[in-house]
């Protein structure tokens, strides 16, 4: 275990604060008052789960399942149960979004760089990449996955939220009565309410001023996820293109809200709603209103 992978546990006024890095994000575990050894045990389990999921599903690691799947494109590959569950879930999201969300759309990032500049790739470039995009081109017969040659998958938009829920379940298994807030880079889950009945307070970063809280959400139980383009976008021709790509066109979504935060029962549900709403562009709010969830836009 190297230094960057170490989890640190400190004591705040009335709760424990565990910190570590995973999935390129700062991760926090806030725990209600508990014996130090219990807090340490919970933090270790949460960090271990985060690192396990990162190792397994990162597309940047050569030892990951995703890497193995992408390397095997063109041939069939049998996947384990957890991966199969994630693939089923991704397929549902593709269906619910009429194809706008697609775990095979990552190859489009070869053309798009979202650095706040105004570079836009040519239509020919996008179309040549679109040949390798589309879940309907994938053979998926649980547990066998068959990508066409040149296709790739990644679990961006699902993986981190899934990891939050999975880590929250690990913490609950160790200390069922202990209220923990799991926060992986702004995606948050709480499984049980705090002992004093007070909610955890979650700040939602302001788009304009990074580092300052636009608003504070009190979370007693459930999850929050945020999707935003405050740092990643392309501005061209009077339109702001978010970093969220519509897999059907290969183009980023136009005129979506800068940031969407959703509260839902699980972080996976909240994260999915933010992603699918972003894909609706200027109709994002209509979709969120119709779904009846609590949401905040910026």
């Amino acid at each position, binding site marked *: 275990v190297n230094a960057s992978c170490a989890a640190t546990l400190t004591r705040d006024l009335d709760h424990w604060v565990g910190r570590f890095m995973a999935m390129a994000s700062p991760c926090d575990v806030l725990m209600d008052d508990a014996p130090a050894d219990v807090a340490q045990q919970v933090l270790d389990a949460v960090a271990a789960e985060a690192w396990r999921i990162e190792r397994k599903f990162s597309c940047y690691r050569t030892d990951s399942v995703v890497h193995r799947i992408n390397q095997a494109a063109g041939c069939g590959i049998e996947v384990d149960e957890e991966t199969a569950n994630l693939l089923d879930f991704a397929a549902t999201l593709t269906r*619910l979004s*009429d194809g706008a969300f697609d775990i095979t759309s990552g190859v489009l990032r070869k053309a798009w760089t979202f650095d706040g500049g105004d570079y836009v790739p040519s239509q020919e470039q996008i179309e040549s990449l679109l040949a390798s995009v589309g879940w309907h081109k994938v053979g998926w017969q649980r547990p066998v996955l068959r990508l066409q040659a040149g296709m790739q998958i990644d679990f961006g938009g699902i993986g981190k939220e899934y990891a939050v829920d999975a880590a929250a379940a690990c913490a609950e298994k160790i200390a069922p009565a202990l209220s923990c807030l799991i926060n992986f880079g702004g995606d948050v889950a709480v499984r049980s309410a705090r002992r004093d009945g007070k909610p955890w307070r979650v700040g939602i970063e302001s788009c304009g001023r990074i580092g300052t809280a636009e608003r504070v959400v009190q979370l007693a*139980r459930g999850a*929050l996820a945020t999707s935003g383009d405050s740092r990643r976008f392309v501005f061209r021709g009077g339109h702001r293109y978010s970093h969220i790509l519509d897999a059907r066109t290969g183009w980023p979504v136009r005129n979506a809200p800068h940031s969407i935060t959703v509260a839902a029962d699980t972080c996976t549900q909240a994260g999915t709603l933010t992603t699918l709403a972003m894909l609706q562009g200027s*109709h994002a709010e209509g979709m969120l209103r119709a779904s009846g969830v609590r949401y905040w836009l910026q």
Partner: protein
Amino acid sequence: MKDENFNAALAAATCALLGSAVATPVRAREEKSPWSLDSTLLYYGESDDRVRDISGAVAATRDFGDERKLSATLTADTLTGASASGAIALGRPQTFTSPSGRAVYTTNPGDLPLDDTFLDTRFALNASWTQPLARLYTFSAGLGFSTEYDYLHLGANLSLARDFNKRNTTVSAGVAYSQDDIDPVGGRPLPLSQMLDVGNGASKRAGSESKDVLDLLLGFTQVLNRTTVLRVNYSYSDSSGYLNDPYKILSVVDPLTGDTLTRVPIGEGPNGVYLFESRPDSRAKQSLYAEMKHAFGKPVLHLAYRYMTDDWGIDSNTGEVRLRWPLGAASYIEPQLRYYTQSAADFYRASLVDGAALPRYASADFRLGDFDATTVGVKFGHGTASGNEWSIRAEYYQQDLSDLSAVIVQFGYRFGL
């Protein structure tokens, strides 16, 4: 998202992924200061030193979360000045007995007779509770109370709203009931009885009268698209009981000269013949209100129209246009224009003619006459960094029937606690 069962499909897929059959329902809410206060100070001043009203109001709302809210508004009003009594102007001085029946006041030749004993302080308190009843339903209930030296008002209201069509449509229905007790200074004049000398109470009766008002309201709000919202309200209002204004009179005029008949008081009293007004004891009003808000990017246009008709023969039309124009990131300016026109009540008349049969109902109150009124105004608002907002609004009102104009200035400050 075309799938109607989107939420159910997503919840099922999440369950399958996470393997937890029972998800605990989320409990999250935005942290806001639980109290928000909206305070206003309003000045209303009519030309020629007629009515002047200074009114202060504080509306406090306590947010209990989960869309449950308690609101209370406290208003204090001070009215001073004089209002038109209903008598016509004459080329000679006119003397009237004041409403108390204990003194007289005199109007100069050529002036519109004004009753300058007009002075009142009013306190009003309204409270309401709003909460969701079930998914898509919102319920609210309220109570109101106000008091003046000759008036006591008690009211209650209930309403229920339901959202449809992915919450783009809201339909609401409401009912309100109020009871007012009126105890006029100097007693309640008998309808169409004559104004008598100081100390002669023969045309007045002691004791209070009451009025009941039942209102029914149907509302419809439709989000037409991302930038346009339409609202339509229909209301029916039924008033019954004492609907007279005990301080309003009519001049009785000579059919040939058109001048008010003269009268010789015994001691102090009126020097002309004046009768107290008489109105029906019921009134049914219907009104239809439509409002559209449209955002052109940042600027917002507000258009509103109201049609009202009642069984007294009054029909009125009101049109209003406002345009909120942002100035920088935190301020806005909002010019507004309102035009109002109404037809007279069937029993409205400027005066009564001597010798003609006395009608059953008659009033010279210009508010029941045929008139047009125009209001032009502008509002400026500024939001502070801490989320509070202050505003100032100035309006000019011009009405043609009794040659009335008024200036309205309002300061507002909205803040959290």
